[in-house]
């Protein structure tokens, strides 16, 4: 019983971790992509469509990642190529992605696929205490590895340093001879791939069918999670598990007839994010602050 609960929490956290880790890299490079929800939905519908058509989960996952990257490239074209306003462009991407995914997916509504298998043999789930942790799928385990690799990349490599520099002081990075736009392009595409993978996880693992707008606000929660983690990769995992726990508690609570209104529990991640935002901005410790050039367009002739 408890094991099942833990497993659900872990699985709910996976898409949050994936999307938020991608967005974290994007924001560290100085770009705010509010289009997470749109990219995730495009990833979800492509993954479902191709898995349904080919029967191969691998091709489905790949399709999710690629379509996430393509959607992100649209964003990059406007925001990086044409220096458009990042906030508005991100919203446009969410509106566009939600619409297009619904349009593509309209013929897949009501169809079913078989989801990802668990990585370890089924009976591992019976092992006391750690059973739930051993009944996950390959994407779930990969997400933890990806977070670790992103941490190594950002804080232990030179390229990571350049990426962070582009987010903190773009013109300094430019004066040193680094191509801020190239760095941001790579970051935006990586963010798109992660969002696409995160979206693909939903129809392939969480609920093996497609429905319109099936991300149901996970993109926004992931955005909140980046702030909640104060732009530190490792904290994304704790944050995602915390947010995942709140989501599941609310369902479990309803089933047991708790008196706490479920809406109150649902609003906790958002309130917690505001709280964290307030704390980090009032403390002003530079390490945990938002990248200072976040949302600033890069114009080389300026």
């Amino acid at each position: 019983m408890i094991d099942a609960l833990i497993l659900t929490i872990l699985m709910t956290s996976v898409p949050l971790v994936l999307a938020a880790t991608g967005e974290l890299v994007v924001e560290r490079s100085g770009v705010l992509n509010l289009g997470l929800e749109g990219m995730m939905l495009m990833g979800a519908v492509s993954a479902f469509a191709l898995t349904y058509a080919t029967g191969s989960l691998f091709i489905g996952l790949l399709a999710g990642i690629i379509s996430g990257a393509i959607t992100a490239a649209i964003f990059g074209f406007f925001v990086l190529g044409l220096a458009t306003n990042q906030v508005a462009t991100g919203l446009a991407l969410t509106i566009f992605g939600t619409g297009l995914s619904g349009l593509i997916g309209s013929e897949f509504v009501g169809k079913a696929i078989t989801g990802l298998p668990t990585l370890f043999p089924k009976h591992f789930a019976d092992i006391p205490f750690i059973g739930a942790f051993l009944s996950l799928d390959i994407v779930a385990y990969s997400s933890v590895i990806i977070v670790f690799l992103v941490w190594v990349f950002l804080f232990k490599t030179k390229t990571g340093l350049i990426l962070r520099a582009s987010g903190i002081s773009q013109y300094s990075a430019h004066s040193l001879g680094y191509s801020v736009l190239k760095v941001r392009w790579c970051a935006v595409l990586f963010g798109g791939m992660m969002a696409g993978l995160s979206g693909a996880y939903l129809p392939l693992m969480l609920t093996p069918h497609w429905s319109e707008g099936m991300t149901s606000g996970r993109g926004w929660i992931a955005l909140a999670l980046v702030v909640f983690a104060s732009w530190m990769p490792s904290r994304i995992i704790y944050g995602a598990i915390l947010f995942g726990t709140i989501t599941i508690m609310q369902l479990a609570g309803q089933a047991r007839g708790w008196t706490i209104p479920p809406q109150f529990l649902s609003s906790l991640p958002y309130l917690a994010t505001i709280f964290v935002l307030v704390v980090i901005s009032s403390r002003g410790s530079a390490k945990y602050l938002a990248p200072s050039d976040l949302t600033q367009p890069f114009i080389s002739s300026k």
Partner: protein
Amino acid sequence: MFHLTLRKETPLIFKVSVPIASILLTILFGIFIFSVLGYDSGKALYHFFISPLSRIDRIADLFVKACPLMIVGTGLVLCFRANIWNIGAEGQLIMGAVFAGGLALSFPDTNSVWLLPAMAVLSFIGGGLWAFLPAILKVRLRTNEILVSLMLTYVASLFLDWLVRGPWRSPTSFGFPLTNYYPDAGLISKINFPGIGTIGQLHWGVFIAILVCLLCWFMMQKTVFGFQVKLVGDSHKAFRYSGFNESKTTMMLFIISGGLAGLAGMIEVSANIGQLQPNISFGYGFTAIIVAFLARLNPAAVILAGLLIALIEMGGDSAQIALAIPKVVTGVFKGILLFLLLAGETLTKYQINVKPRQRSVPND
């Protein structure tokens, strides 16, 4: 890829042609999408853009649909002009409706003519309060207003959900998440044209919406506050040198735009729904962002922009009924339109050279 340089002056032709070109290009994309999906593009375009304009009552309904978009859009124009990013208009709209609804539901037997004005004031306060939070945090602690206002949208919508399922649920709603109906004095009536009667759903809120847009336009053009708004958006330095108080302007703008969003929420419920329910807004707060950009951040142009976006929404309904084109296609149109408008904004601000960029050291 491209190389952008700041323009010294924007040619007038760009200012006018950007919205028009964006609309035409969106229609071209539309034709492309329809033919890819195997629909008859001619018919689809007819149902999208002509059918909603084919009868006088449909045109009236267009104004009704545009009403919340105009009111919210005007408030956002003021914010965006000042480079303040209030993204939470959706939440402020909901809180406005909640505040006004609370009053209407507290006086179920009243027939006072003061109920509606009081609801309007309360809705402005409700929306304004919800916008006050990100504003005060931004001014005092420099907390990012985009994220806070966005998060609060979800909190507002969950709060409304709790109210209509819990404490405010009507005992006669058979368990449905609905409140009691407002008293008649709390409803906005349809406009009764002498000799003609009512036209479609056209109500007095539409009149208020157009009035709000014109008032804001007047304020931007003719008052010191309007000048402050434009100045703070164009140059922070000049603003401070001129002795204006930036924090105060930021707070004011947030409260005005939140208040207007709240007012839009109250009008929407009082004119079209008559009671509170879990969904009272269909993303008006987000769609209004497109309206603001389509109007090129001019409050008077918001009237036209609101009507155009309403046309796309209504066209989506009519195309779904007539040709079974999924309604979500309106999202694709709105997204593409916003992309193109933003790209157009770049064209007016920068010169685009396609020649390869020389590596140059920036001189600031």
